[in-house]
């Protein structure tokens, strides 16, 4: 299976965008999952709904909202470019943002489920043995919910690799910059005679998904062996 330079570029860009989207999304996802699983606070229902919004909104709507909020003229876009020198519109960073936001609910859900399944007695026991709150979080809670974090990261990665609607609406389709695998497939399918290129890219996406799934399965097994004997 020989890829043209453009196709290889789209593939590598997808890997980069999806990986960074997972890493950027992980800390806030753990925080949101923890808040939703453990805390009671006013407006929790609204917060829960907000976290899940990207899951139920059409991706094009998310893309348009991102364009309006994070574009050069958007309030958040101006804030980021003025204070941090970061621009999102029509750049690969925008593709990361779109992918991270679309994958965020998946990450939160998986982590929250494993937090809710965790017996709070274990954490309480660690506290009575003298561990500080942060120590409990880092050396008890997080290792125990690692499978949930991995599952969430995997779902987010898969979603990020497949993200289309929000990406093309927010950052358009620029080869080498924002043209990820799905956008390249869309372009190939739309072009007369692009069927062969589309087929190669489709095979590549399937392969990538399989590798990601197998990797997460292996990681989960290794984790089980180490911690559960």
């Amino acid at each position: 299976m020989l890829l043209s330079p453009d196709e290889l570029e789209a593939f590598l860009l997808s890997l980069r965008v999806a990986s960074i989207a997972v890493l950027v999304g992980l800390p806030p996802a753990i925080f949101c999952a923890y808040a939703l699983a453990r805390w009671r606070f006013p407006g929790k229902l609204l917060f829960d709904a907000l976290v899940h919004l990207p899951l139920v909104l059409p991706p094009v709507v998310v893309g348009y909202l991102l364009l309006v909020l994070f574009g050069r003229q958007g309030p958040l876009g101006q804030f980021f470019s003025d204070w941090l020198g970061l621009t999102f519109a029509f750049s690969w960073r925008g593709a990361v943002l779109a992918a991270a936001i679309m994958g965020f609910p998946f990450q939160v859900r998986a982590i929250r489920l494993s937090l809710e399944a965790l017996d709070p007695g274990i954490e309480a026991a660690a506290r009575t043995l003298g561990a500080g709150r942060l120590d409990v979080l880092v050396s008890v809670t997080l290792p125990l919910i690692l499978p949930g974090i991995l599952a969430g990261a995997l779902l987010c990665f898969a979603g990020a690799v497949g993200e289309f609607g929000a990406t093309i609406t927010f950052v358009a389709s620029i080869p080498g910059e924002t043209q990820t695998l799905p956008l390249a497939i869309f372009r190939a399918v739309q072009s007369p005679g692009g069927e062969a290129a589309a087929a190669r890219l489709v095979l590549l996406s399937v392969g990538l998904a399989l590798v990601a799934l197998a990797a997460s399965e292996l990681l989960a097994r290794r984790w089980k062996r180490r911690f559960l004997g």
Partner: protein
Amino acid sequence: MRLVSCLPQTLLALVTAALLTSAPARAEDEITLFAAASMTDAMTDLAAAYSAAGHPSVKLAFASSSTLAKQIENGAPADLYISADLKWMDYLAERQLIVAETRSNLAGNALVLIAPLGSAQAAAADPATLDWAALLGADGKLAIGDPAHVPAGRYAKAALDFLGVWQLVESHAVFAGDVRAALTFVETDEAVAGIVYATDAAISARVAVVGSFPTASHEPIVYPIAVVAEHDRPAVRAFLDFLLSGEGARILQHYGFVVPARSS
């Protein structure tokens, strides 16, 4: 227990009932039109005028010409197809997916350079003699349809090639999924300029036309229309006749389309 055991049958019955009731009563005279995105406003108006005159209602689907052609190739239930270029109509014709004798050129269009209303770029200028480097600045974006598959993008690239500035502006180009998405990027001030059809610029209150591209700079922009193969029904022909009539031409012209002289 009894409830659980009869659940599958109940579900099956419900699903069957839902499928039966929701199956479209495929009215013989209901018409489905697939049209290029740039036709959105004109066709919405035309369809409304047609059914207001007591004719059957027309269902409209808009997307880029390529998307629609591929959908028709894969059996989408379209009765009529309007493409924004000859290539995609030829694509269907080669595959015997349109009724050849019903094909004609419905309308024409012009290619214009646009900028956000009130921006520095919005001052009128002739694209043929424009200083593109000054227009786009260091990192200004130029929104166009993706030249790989969006007709408006292909015309735009051809025109920029013809003017000898494609190399210069290529790094500034932002490829949109269809021509209306390119318009949106300029409307929201994200791109400092864009290249769209004259008709797209005309329906937007938030962009200004900088200037028109010379007609020689790109192949003529025509919108061929044809009846989709195996959808040749009297009701479809009647709507096609309406689109090609004087009344149809009047509405198309209202939206900025050029209507070619017709023999009939």
